[in-house]
């Protein structure tokens, strides 16, 4: 096979898919770092973000990229609300209780989406988009938007975590919760901030999946496994690890089609997840052990 064929049909779609996974995996890793549990409603929150953007696109007739910020803010607010109404009461209970509760939230969010938007496949815009040719590389605009959004959002998050007072407070809470409390850091504000960021990134993840493929009520649920695989692969609690993990899982899934039937593509994430848990549970960039 030619190099350009490999790049155009496998690597570039892999990077795009990987960027989508990465946006979700960063949220998963942050929630684990601060709150210490696996959030199973993450995929369905991503679906919600995608459909909120759809509502803005069809309702106001604006371009999908204008709808994205609205979807990010709305999903962030929903995430904070879910935490306040459901998870907050479980904070002192064993973490597995919250993990199970988040599975329930996942089903609830999905059902609401199915009631409001139905179960049919939707798209942001109709018609076929032809890729542009860049020196032999065939790339669509929406693919560029996806990668740029990952860089801007995660870059912004990194700046926030390393430069701002509250960003550092989040890292402190992840690093040593007792000492953070002894230092007078307000745990409730840190938790809220975590949900704003995770919810917003979730919406971006769902939106770009919808933009590059199509919108379905199950779309986020199917992303949950690859997103978790990405977070664990990169090292739980590591933002840059989640991005790296997301890209690896995305590219591996697309490349796997070369050797296995495409119906089994999703199994790649599972293989990577199992392999990492067996061989190096702390992930590529040393993270927390689940």
């Amino acid at each position, binding site marked *: 096979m030619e190099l350009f064929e490999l790049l155009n049909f496998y690597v570039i779609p892999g990077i795009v898919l990987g960027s989508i996974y990465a946006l979700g995996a960063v949220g998963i890793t942050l929630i684990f770092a601060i709150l210490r549990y696996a959030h199973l409603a993450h995929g369905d929150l991503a679906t919600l973000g995608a459909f909120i953007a759809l509502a803005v696109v069809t309702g106001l007739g604006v371009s999908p990229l204008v709808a994205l910020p609205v979807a990010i803010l709305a999903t962030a607010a929903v995430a904070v609300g879910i935490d306040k109404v459901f998870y907050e009461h479980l904070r002192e209970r064993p973490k597995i209780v919250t993990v199970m509760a988040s599975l329930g939230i996942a089903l609830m969010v999905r059902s609401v989406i199915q009631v409001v938007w139905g179960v049919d496949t939707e798209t942001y815009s109709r018609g076929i988009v032809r890729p542009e040719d860049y020196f032999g590389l065939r790339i669509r605009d929406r693919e560029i938007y996806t990668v740029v959004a990952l860089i801007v959002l995660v870059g912004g998050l990194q700046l926030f975590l390393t430069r701002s*007072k509250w960003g*550092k*407070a989040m*890292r*402190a809470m992840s*690093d*040593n919760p*007792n*000492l*953070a*409390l*002894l*230092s*007078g*850091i307000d745990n409730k504000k840190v938790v809220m901030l975590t949900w704003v960021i995770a919810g917003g990134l979730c919406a971006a993840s769902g939106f770009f999946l919808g933009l590059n493929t199509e919108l379905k009520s199950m779309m986020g649920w199917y992303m949950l496994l690859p997103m978790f695989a990405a977070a664990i692969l990169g090292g739980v609690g590591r933002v840059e690890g989640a991005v790296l993990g997301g890209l690896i899982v995305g590219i591996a899934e697309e490349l796997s089609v070369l050797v296995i039937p495409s119906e089994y593509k999703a199994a790649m994430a599972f293989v990577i997840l199992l392999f990492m848990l067996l061989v190096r549970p702390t992930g590529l960039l040393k993270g927390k052990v689940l």
Partner: protein
Amino acid sequence: MSALLSMENLTGGYGDADILQDVSMHVAPDEIVAIVGPNGAGKSTAMKSVFGMLTIRGGRMLFDGDDITKWTPNRIVQRGICYVPQVDNIFREMSIHENLEMGGFLKKGDLSASYDRVYTLFPDLKERRKTLAGSLSGGQRQMVAMGRALMLDPKLLLLDEPTAGLSPKYMEQIFQICRDVRDTGVAILLVEQHAKQALAFADRGYVLAAGKNRHEGTGAELLADREVAEMFLGG
């Protein structure tokens, strides 16, 4: 001299069990006070009681004119008592400077005077301010932990076994740092496993056993006391 902190007939513990029974202690504004005693004597518990971390069922705690017996740790921190736990007392994945910044989290406005003060006490830390705290040696970590606690300009510093696991060389260094901190006007109450060394260096000491006050006096007095020597210090 009037006491900065006075613990009067304190009884209490975690949950329902009373670990401390009728314990009384005081700390003057410019002294280092060591609490020593055998394992399980309630040394750390006595110190944590100052910080509002246990249930008090009798007695009271006065600090600088306020009755702080029922205060929450957060309010106590803001009032001027900072606590350095024995283990996990730094943010490992943050730089030295960020550790200090988190120590000063509650302070409004400019932190530069507080940084200066800590860096003057610990010049080693200033040179390595961008270094991750988790990569430091045991003695330096203890400096970061104390530096973090000093960022809020406390009047009283509580140290839980600051020399645990350190070599004798570092132990002496930490003791010297405690004296330097005291000389800047911060009182120190510390719990020590190394009873002899601690009593030799502290201004005063208390010997606790089975949750009760047993002996009180200057370090030299306690070291000279035959009963103290036999019971708790291994002769």
